[in-house]
C-alpha cells in the first residue's frame, strides 16, 4: 500500500497524458478517441478516489499526504514536489469527476478532429490536476500556465460563432496577469533560494523579507488569481468564453483553479498582506455578486446567463475566502465543490439542448417540459441545487459563507450578499420557466422529442445523487476540508495579530 501511496499522485498526473498520447496514435474511426478518452478519465477518477479513501484525518497526521519530492532541476533548485491536504483533496477528486462528464458532454458535440480535441482535453486535465497537487511554486506555475494553452486552442477550434476572437481574449486576459506572478515567484526565489511552498511560508512568516516588495509580490499573486476566478471587475473574458467554449471546457474554465490558489498561495503564503487587502476584496466580491446577478437577470442567451451567474456565485465564494473566517473558508471550499458538480450538470444539459436546437437564444425555447420530461426534471433539480435550496448541495456552502460573513466580517455585507442569493433564485427560475414551461415554441414543435439517452442518464444520475448527498451529509466532505483550512487559520491569526 505504501508503494501506491508514494506514487499515486504521479500516476494521477500521468494518466491523462498517457491517454492523450494514445488518442493521438489511434486512427480516428468508430469513436475510438472518445472511448479512449472516456476510459482514461474514468481511470483517473478511480485513482483520485484513492486519495480520500486513504487520507488520514488523525490529529498527528502530516499536513500534506501522499507527498512526493524529487529534485527535478539542480540550479535553480526546482523540485517535483506533490502533495495533497484537506484543502486540495476534494478538489482533485472534483477534477477527476468532471473529466468523464466532459467527455460525455463532447461525445456527439465534437464531430471533427476528435483526436486533437480529446488529446488537448486530456492535457488540460493534467494541467489542472497539477495545479492542485504542486507544492513547488515553479512546478505550480508551470501547470498553471499549461492549463491556458489547450483551453485557448480548443475554444478557437470549436467556438460556436467567433472562436478565435474569444480564445485570444481568454488567453490574453489570463496570460498577461501571470507575467507579474512569474516575476513575483522569481523574486521570492532570488531572496530565499527556494520554490518550496512550506519553506517559503516559513520565510515570509519569519519577517526576514523586505516588507515593501513583499507587498507587491502578494499583490501580483492576488492579481493573477483574481483574473482567473474572475473577481469583479476583471471578468471581461468570462461571458465570451462561456458562449464560445465547448461544453466540456466551459464547465471547468472558471472558478476552482483561481479560488484554490487564492486560499493556498495568497492567504496561505502572505497572511498579513492578504489581511490588508481583504476588505477591498470583500467589497469587490459583494459588488460582483450583485452585478453578476443583475446582469444574469437580463440576458437573452443562456450561455451568457450562465456566465454572469457564475460571476455571481464565484464572487460569493471569494467573499467566503476573504472574510478570513474559518466557517467562511470551509463554506468556500465546499461551495467550490458544489459549484463544480451543479455547473457540470447544468452545462451538460444546456449543451444537449444547444446540440439539438442549435441556438442559445432563450426566447427560441418554450414548453420543453412536455416533450423532454427527463431533461426538465434533471434541469430543475440542478437549478434548485444551484440556488441553494435546503437539503440540496448548494445550501450548506452558501449558508456557511453567509454565516461567516455575518458574524466575522460585517452584517451589512452579509445582507447585501444575501440579496444576491435571492436574485440568483430569480434568474435561474425564470430560465427554467422560459425554457421548459409556457407555450411550446415553434422551434421546439419542429423537432421530434428526443429525451436523454442511457449514457447521458448514467452520467446525470450520479450527479443528482451527489447534489442530494452534499446537502444531506455535508460532514462527509467537511471533515477533510477542516483539516485543510485549520493550519491556514492559525498562520493568519498568528501573523495577522503579530503584524499589528
Amino acid at each position: 500500500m505504501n508503494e501506491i501511496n508514494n506514487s499515486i499522485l504521479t500516476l494521477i498526473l500521468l494518466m491523462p497524458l498517457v491517454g492523450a498520447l494514445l488518442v493521438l496514435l489511434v486512427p480516428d474511426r468508430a469513436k475510438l478517441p472518445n472511448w479512449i478518452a472516456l476510459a482514461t478519465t474514468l481511470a483517473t477518477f478511480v485513482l483520485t478516489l484513492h486519495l480520500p479513501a486513504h487520507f488520514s484525518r488523525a490529529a498527528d497526521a502530516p499536513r500534506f499526504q501522499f507527498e512526493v519530492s524529487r529534485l527535478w532541476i539542480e540550479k535553480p533548485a526546482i523540485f517535483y514536489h506533490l502533495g495533497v491536504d484537506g484543502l486540495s483533496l476534494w478538489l482533485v477528486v472534483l477534477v477527476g469527476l468532471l473529466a468523464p462528464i466532459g467527455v460525455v458532454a463532447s461525445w456527439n458535440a465534437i464531430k471533427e478532429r476528435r483526436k486533437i480535441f480529446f488529446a488537448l482535453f486530456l492535457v488540460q486535465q493534467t494541467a489542472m490536476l497539477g495545479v492542485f497537487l504542486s507544492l513547488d511554486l515553479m512546478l505550480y506555475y508551470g501547470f498553471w500556465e499549461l492549463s491556458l494553452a489547450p483551453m485557448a486552442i480548443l475554444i478557437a477550434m470549436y467556438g460556436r460563432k467567433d472562436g478565435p476572437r474569444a480564445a485570444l481574449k481568454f488567453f490574453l486576459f489570463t496570460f498577461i496577469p501571470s507575467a507579474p506572478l512569474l516575476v513575483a515567484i522569481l523574486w521570492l526565489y532570488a531572496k530565499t533560494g527556494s520554490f518550496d511552498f512550506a519553506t517559503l511560508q516559513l520565510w515570509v512568516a519569519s519577517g526576514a523579507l523586505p516588507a515593501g516588495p513583499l507587498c507587491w509580490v502578494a499583490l501580483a499573486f492576488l492579481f493573477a488569481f483574481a483574473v482567473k476566478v474572475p473577481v469583479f471587475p476583471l471578468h471581461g473574458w468570462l461571458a465570451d468564453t462561456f458562449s464560445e467554449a465547448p461544453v466540456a471546457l466551459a464547465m471547468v474554465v472558471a472558478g476552482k483553479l483561481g479560488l484554490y490558489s487564492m486560499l493556498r498561495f495568497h492567504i496561505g503564503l502572505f497572511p498579513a498582506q492578504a489581511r490588508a487587502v481583504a476588505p477591498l476584496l470583500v467589497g469587490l466580491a459583494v459588488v460582483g455578486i450583485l452585478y453578476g446577478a443583475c446582469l444574469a437577470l437580463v440576458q437573452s442567451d443562456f450561455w451568457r446567463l450562465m456566465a454572469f451567474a457564475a460571476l455571481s456565485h464565484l464572487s460569493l465564494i471569494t467573499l467566503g475566502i476573504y472574510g478570513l473566517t474559518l466557517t467562511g473558508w470551509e463554506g468556500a471550499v465546499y461551495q467550490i465543490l458544489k459549484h463544480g458538480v451543479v455547473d457540470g450538470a447544468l452545462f451538460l444539459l444546456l449543451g444537449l439542448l444547444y446540440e439539438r436546437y442549435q441556438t442559445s437564444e432563450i426566447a427560441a425555447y418554450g414548453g420543453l417540459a412536455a416533450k423532454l420530461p427527463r431533461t426538465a426534471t434533471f434541469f430543475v433539480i440542478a437549478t434548485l441545487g444551484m440556488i441553494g435550496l435546503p437539503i440540496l448541495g448548494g445550501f450548506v456552502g452558501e449558508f456557511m459563507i453567509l454565516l461567516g460573513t455575518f458574524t466575522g466580517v460585517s452584517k451589512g455585507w452579509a445582507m447585501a450578499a444575501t440579496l444576491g442569493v435571492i436574485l440568483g433564485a430569480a434568474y435561474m427560475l425564470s430560465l427554467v420557466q422560459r425554457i421548459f414551461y409556457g407555450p411550446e415554441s415553434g422551434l421546439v414543435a419542429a423537432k421530434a422529442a428526443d429525451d436523454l439517452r442511457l449514457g447521458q442518464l448514467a452520467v446525470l444520475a450520479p450527479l443528482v445523487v451527489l447534489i442530494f448527498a452534499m446537502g444531506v451529509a455535508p460532514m462527509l466532505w467537511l471533515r477533510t476540508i477542516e483539516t485543510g483550512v485549520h493550519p491556514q487559520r492559525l498562520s493568519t491569526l498568528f501573523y495577522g495579530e503579530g503584524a499589528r
Partner: protein
Amino acid sequence: MNPVPDLYRILPEVVLTLSGVAVMLLDASLPSYWARRPLGWVAAIGSTLALWASLWQLSLPEGTGFSGTVETSAFTVFFHVLICGIVLVTLLLSLDTLPEDSHHQGEFYALVVFGAVGMCLLTAAVELLLVFIALEISSIATYVLVGYRKQTARGAEAAIKYFLLGSFATAFLLYGIALIFGATGTTEIYAIAQAVPFAVNHALILAGLGLMLVGILFKVSAVPFHVWTPDVYEGASSPVVALISTAPKAAAFALLLRVIYEMLPTLRPVWSPLLWVVAVLSMTVGNLAALRQTNVKRMLAYSSIAHAGYLLAALAGLGNEGIMAASFYIAAYAAMNVGIFAVITLTQGYDERRPLIADLRGLVYRSPMLGSLLIFFLASLIGIPFTGGFFGKFISFSTAIGGGAIWLVMIGVLNSGLAAAYYLRLALVAAQRPEQEVKETIAPQQVGIAVGAGLLMAVAATLALGILPGTVLRAADAGAHTLEAPPAENAPVNPMLPQ
C-alpha cells in the same frame, strides 16, 4: 609545452571544411545529369561527424592552440555542438525541400557547411583577428545563401541588403578591434583583459567596445541594428532562414559573451546599462512590430528580434550566471526557431506563393501533423511550460532577477504577454476551420525521411529542454565557468578615470 596537437583544437572545423570541399569537388566532377541530392547527405554526415568531434574535444584538457588563437573548453564545445546541430537540421530540411531541378544544389550544401566552419571558429577564437576572419567566413557564406533564390527579385534584394549592412557592421567591428589594439597593444583576448585596467587611454577602449558591440549586435539583430532582419528573412528561402536566424546568432552571442565577460569584465558598469537598454528596446520594438505583420516570415523575424532581447536580459545576472542563462536560452531558441521554420518550409513550399498568415488558415484540418507541430512550436515561442521556450525565458529572467534587474524582467514578462498575442493569432488561424470557398489553398508537401528526421530532432530538443533541462544547464554552467567573470562583489572602480 602544449601536449595537445594544434589540429585537435580545431578538429570540428577541419571536419566541416573537408566535407565542404568534398561536396564542392563532387559537384564539379560528377556528370551533370546525376542528381545532386546525395551531396546533401555528404554534408549532413560531415556535420554529424563535426558534432561528434566537438563532443570528443571535451576529453582534451582545456587550453589554446595555434599560438594562443583558438581555444577548446566546455564553452566552445557547447556552442560547437549547438551550431553543428542546427546545421545538420537545416541540411536535412533542405534535402527534401530544395526543388530537384534547382541548379547549383551542390553549392548550397557546400556554402552551408563553410558557413558553419566560420561560426564554429568564431566561438573558439580567442584572438581578435581570428574573430574577424571567422566572422567573415560565416558572413560571406550566409550572404550568398540568402540570395540563393535568385530568380525572385526579393531574394536578390535581401542578399544585397544583408551584404551591404553586414559589411558595414563588420567594418565597425574591425574598427573597434583596431582601437582596442591601439589602446592595449595586443589582439589576444586574455592579454587585453589583463591590460585594460592599466591602459592609459581609456576612452579608446570605450570607443573600441562601443564599435565592437555595434558589429555584434547587428549580427544578433538587436534593436537598433535590426532593420535588415525582416527583409532578409522574407527574401531568403525558409531553410536558409532556419539557419541564419539561429546559428550565426548563436556564434555572435558566444562572441558577445567572450567580449564582455572575458575580455572586458572590468567595464561592466559601461556595458551592463548599454545592454539593458538594448534588451528592453529589442523586446519592445520587436514585439510591437510583430503585432502588425501579416506575412508569416516577417512576423517571425520581429519575434526573433524580441527573443534577442529576452536573451540579453540574462546578462543582467550576477557574476557569470548570465553566461549560463544566455547559453541555455540560445539553445532553446535555436531548437524552436529551427522547428518552426521547418514547418513553414513544409507548408509554404520552396517558392512561397502564399506567404501570409491568413494563408495558413485551417492548416490543422488540411494537415493535422504539420498544424499540430506549428502550434507546438508556437507554444514554445510563447513560453508555455514544459517546452524549451518557457524554460529558456524562465532561466533568463530568473538570472536577471538574481542580479537585481526587476524592472528589466517586468518589462520582459509583459513583453512575453504581448508576444503571446501574435503567436497565438497565428496558432488560432491554423486551428480555425478552413473556409469552404477557398479552393486554391497551399497543399502541404509530403514529409520525407530527411525532413521528418530534422523535425523530430527539433521537437525532441524543444521538449527535452523544457522537461529535462538538467544536462544542457550543466553543460552551459560548465561553459560559463571557463569564461572568467569577476566575482560579483569585486566591482571595479570608476572606469572613466585612467588608472
